[in-house]
């Protein structure tokens, strides 16, 4: 089978497994009442591994899948947020972020904080005022705790995602920041 198609199927499977684990286990793992968001970690890993385009595509589908399980926000809000986050992480990875040991957890930390803020801000603009119902303190708590969750969980998730994305167009171009594909090194387009 075409290796690019195989990689896409593996990424799709990764997203489905991630959302099932998120619903079955992720929402029980609350620190200060805040649960991790495994999907946003996957999206950040996609941006890091495959670049802006791959991050946008994976972000859109991951967000759309997430929207199917949310009840108080319209379908498309998570897709919009994750798509922009994935693209932004991918663009930064290609132009600014250098390969370092802590690249994945630090990017996950900052990317998740940005995703939470963007989700609430976009929702507020689109009339979803209930997202700010818990007040600023709740928003800050979610940003901080969810970001820390992402930083910790991004290490195993980054490894698994890099395995899933090996052979895909973006991963071939950028290389994976961690995981099996990283051994081949980064092959930038001049």
């Amino acid at each position: 089978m075409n290796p690019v198609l195989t990689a896409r199927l593996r990424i799709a499977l990764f997203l489905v497994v991630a959302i099932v684990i998120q619903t079955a286990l992720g929402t029980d793992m609350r620190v200060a009442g805040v649960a991790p968001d495994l999907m946003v970690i996957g999206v950040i890993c996609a941006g890091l591994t495959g670049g802006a385009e791959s991050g946008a595509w994976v972000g859109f589908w991951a967000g759309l899948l997430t929207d199917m399980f949310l009840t108080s926000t319209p379908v498309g809000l998570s897709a919009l947020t994750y798509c922009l986050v994935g693209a932004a992480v991918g663009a930064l990875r290609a132009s600014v972020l250098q390969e370092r040991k802590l690249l994945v957890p630090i990017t996950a930390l900052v990317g998740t904080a940005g995703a939470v803020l963007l989700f609430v801000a976009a929702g507020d603009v689109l009339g979803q005022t209930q997202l700010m119902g818990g007040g600023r303190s709740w928003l800050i708590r979610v940003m901080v705790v969810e970001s820390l969750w992402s930083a910790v969980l991004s290490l195993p998730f980054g490894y698994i995602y890099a395995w899933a994305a090996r052979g895909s167009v973006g991963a071939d171009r950028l290389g994976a920041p961690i995981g099996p594909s990283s051994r081949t090194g980064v092959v930038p387009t001049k």
Partner: protein
Amino acid sequence: MAVYRRSSRTRNVLAVLVLAALTLITIDARSNGSGALTSVRGAVSDAFSPLQRATHAALAPIGNFLTGAIDYGSLRAENQKLRQEVAGLQSQAVSSSAAEQQYKQLLQEMNLPFVGSIPTVAVQIIDQGFSNFDNSLTINKGTASGIAAGQPVVAAGGLVGTVLAATSHTATVRLLTDPSFAVGVGLQGGNVASASGQGRFEPMRVTIDSTKLPAPVMKVGDTVVTTGLSLEKFPKGIPVGKVSKVSTPPGAAEPTIELAPLVNPTRLSYLQVLLWSPA
């Protein structure tokens, strides 16, 4: 540092995806919960529910372990508090008979309905709320078990929320801490009020409706129950919360009251849906 060529293709892809997302948002917002996207949501939820149930059952021990490890401090404090309460209850055993009589009298005075007369469906929580901004949870039964939108959901301690939407095999429960949730409650002195959510883990805010009566005298620890007045969405007598804070701002005629919900659904696995609808 490597320099990468910025492709217009990436910008086009991003623009198309953003437009697609905005289109979906617009369609869903205009459908008011009854459009094609809502049906798709229900179908996806139904399709995933067996997998969710199986994964939830398989991963429950890991989840319980992690929850226990994360909440170790609070569980220890709670255990200590419960031990003290047990010791207190043992010392009160002598006067239990009198207290029981008082309790029965109170029930008669408040005319609490016999909760057992309302048919219920036992349900299991399969998702504790996907997003940190989503004050809802998913249960493992739906319209096939007689569950419908608007039905009250309770647990051993009291009110949990209401059924927001139901598919054939799952249902979404809006928690009483949701900012869009409101329930009529009775206060001291015949006053009625509405208690509304302010977000998960936040106390409920009580707004007093009956201004013609003398202001209610409430104290911290008082239990507040549903009124069950006509047009109310809940039957009478379901405990909602305990008064956690009472303060009267300078110049205000009525006190500001906050309620701590009696039930913390994050610590529960099973709930009861009351097959009840307003008369």
